């Protein structure tokens, strides 16, 4: 199977679905490479480089450059979705969604319920999360818990190129509004990705590694870190079961509870802020539905409750490190860990 980057995988998903269904459009800032300039067409492929080539294949009627106007992009995409198109809106950095929350939370997410089940809003919002590039506090957040909190939104966080393609195809075919969160540190990572279209269902976690000693639940870019830790601990005879839920809404609660029932120990690794975040949510899930199986308190590995810093050393200290993840595993196993 060919190896492809996360970026290519996302581009292929868009390409597959645009070819299959002419109601799929993509809309966003610079996604057709910038319009109205004096230079070449499709210069960027979006600032993320994800949509490059699509305008050549599908034209400007379906690959739509907009002004910098997030509320209008979001609202137009939601309105188009509720009237018969399947828009994929690119909103660049997730941080920029701040100016258009209303159109997502109060409009798209609620149409179906508020209108008595008759509305369908097949909208995909692609955006980019995560720290690691010294982009600081307004370009580095991992805001997935905010979207997860809103009933009516599905939230997808692919951790690798294979999942990115299959989950995005599923998202485009899905009749609900889907927030599809790409991690900026993953765009150049590679995996084996089939050329053809395939869909990965939502709400089905992937067991990245299997083991009986401790369960780690990790999301997005944290999956690779947790996997590296699991491999390292295996050399010491510690068997980690690493679960990547892939979607936070719906969440595969069953996979997590079933694993904790066997291992009795849980570490959650997430890049979101700790208060009201995914780590707290999963800890609460296991405390309320799987407490009897726990042999140790749940450990949560998250950033501190601060904005994302700029200086590279501070940013490195902000993100959950392999060392902190390993220390958390050893602590739930009852090993004494030196203070950080």
């Amino acid at each position: 199977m060919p190896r492809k980057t996360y970026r290519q995988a996302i581009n292929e998903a868009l390409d597959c679905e645009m070819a299959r269904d002419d109601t799929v459009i993509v809309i966003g800032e610079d996604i057709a490479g910038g319009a109205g300039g004096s230079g070449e067409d499709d210069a960027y492929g979006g600032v993320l480089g994800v949509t490059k080539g699509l305008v050549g294949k599908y034209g400007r009627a379906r690959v739509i450059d907009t002004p910098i106007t997030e509320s209008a992009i979001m609202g137009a995409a939601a309105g188009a979705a509720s009237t018969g198109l399947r828009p994929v809106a690119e909103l660049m950095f997730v941080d920029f969604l701040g100016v258009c929350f209303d159109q997502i939370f109060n409009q798209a997410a609620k149409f179906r319920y508020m209108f008595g089940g008759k509305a369908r809003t097949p909208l995909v919002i692609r955006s980019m999360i995560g720290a690691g590039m010294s982009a600081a506090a307004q370009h580095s957040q991992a805001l997935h818990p905010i979207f997860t909190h809103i009933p009516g939104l599905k939230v997808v966080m692919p951790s690798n190129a294979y999942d990115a393609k299959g989950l995005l195809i599923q998202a485009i075919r899905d009749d609900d509004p889907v927030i599809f969160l790409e991690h900026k540190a993953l765009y150049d990572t590679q995996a084996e990705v089939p050329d053809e279209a395939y869909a990965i269902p939502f709400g089905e976690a992937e067991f990245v590694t299997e083991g009986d000693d401790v369960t780690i639940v990790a999301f997005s870019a944290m999956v690779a870190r947790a996997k590296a830790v699991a491999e390292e601990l295996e050399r010491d005879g510690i068997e980690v079961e690493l679960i990547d839920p892939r979607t936070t809404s719906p969440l595969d609660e069953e996979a997590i509870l079933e694993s904790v029932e066997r291992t009795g120990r849980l570490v959650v690794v997430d890049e979101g802020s700790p208060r009201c975040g995914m780590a707290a949510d999963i800890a609460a899930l296991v405390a309320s539905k799987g407490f009897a199986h726990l042999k140790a308190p749940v450990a949560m590995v998250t950033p501190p409750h601060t904005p994302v810093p700029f200086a590279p050393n501070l940013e490195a200290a902000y993100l959950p490190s392999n060392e902190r993840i390993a220390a958390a595993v050893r602590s739930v196993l009852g090993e004494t860990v030196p203070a950080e």
Partner: protein
Amino acid sequence: MQLDRPTLIEAYRRMRLIRDFEDNVQAQFEQGRIPGFVHLYAGQEASAVGVCLHLSDEDYIGSTHRGHGHCIAKGCDVTGMMKEIFGREGGLCRGKGGSMHIADLDKGMLGANAIVGGNPPLVVGAALTVKTKGLPHVAVSFTGDGGSNQGTTFEAMNLAVVLNLPAIFVFENNGYGEGTGVSYAVGADSIADRAAGFGMPAKAVDGRDFFAVFEAAREAIERARTGGGPSAIEVTCMRQHGHFIGDAQAYRSREELERVRADDPLRLFRERVTGEGRLDAPDLDAVDAECAKAIADAIEAAESAPVPSEDELTTDVYVSY
């Protein structure tokens, strides 16, 4: 444009239906039979009807939290609406939306919208669907003077111009955003002129005059249907009631409230068409009787409808999960 007799009757019928709906909803609310908040549209009928008479079920509208009039003008079933407002089974949104969120997608009614400035971007999306699919339809955003100040509305107007979409922005300037007067809250002298600044044709009309609204809407809708892009209409009208039922309106003078009654668009319509000999009083009286019965029946149906089953609480969050 000279309107034929059936069109005049239909215009009056829809305006009268709105007025009766609102008067009766007010009475029911004051008797404690309707939960939540209710914002009445009475006094603005010529706007909704003057625009929507040009539209079919395939055309879209987006509305405001003061949405009953737009729903009725667009052809929504008044019994389904009444059940919805009462929070009963069989309501247009099965009792999950209420007064501020009535929608009927089969009628092209994309929803009353409880967020001021919420609908213009959505309507731009509906217009984008129409253009992408190459259809001859249009999408109309009804926004108040309050909503005209929201950034979402500015972004929507700009995007509609940039993409040359078949969108019409109707600004119903009823003088107040909640309790704050338009002369204070709108920095520009004219909402229409402000809309024109986005690069689209825009005009202001007297919303007491059904015929003025109808003609301005005809022009804008025809332009949009034939690829001429978006336009704006500022309709100056009078909100007969407070912002919500129960609003004492201390912010309005007694003289102003008296003028509101005198400027009633239904009365002006009736005087004009009978004065010009285009319709007779008995024609209009028959419409009055028909509408009164329709609303009385709607209330009776709503009162006797069951409340939604509690099993409905968690349904329809997602299409599939």
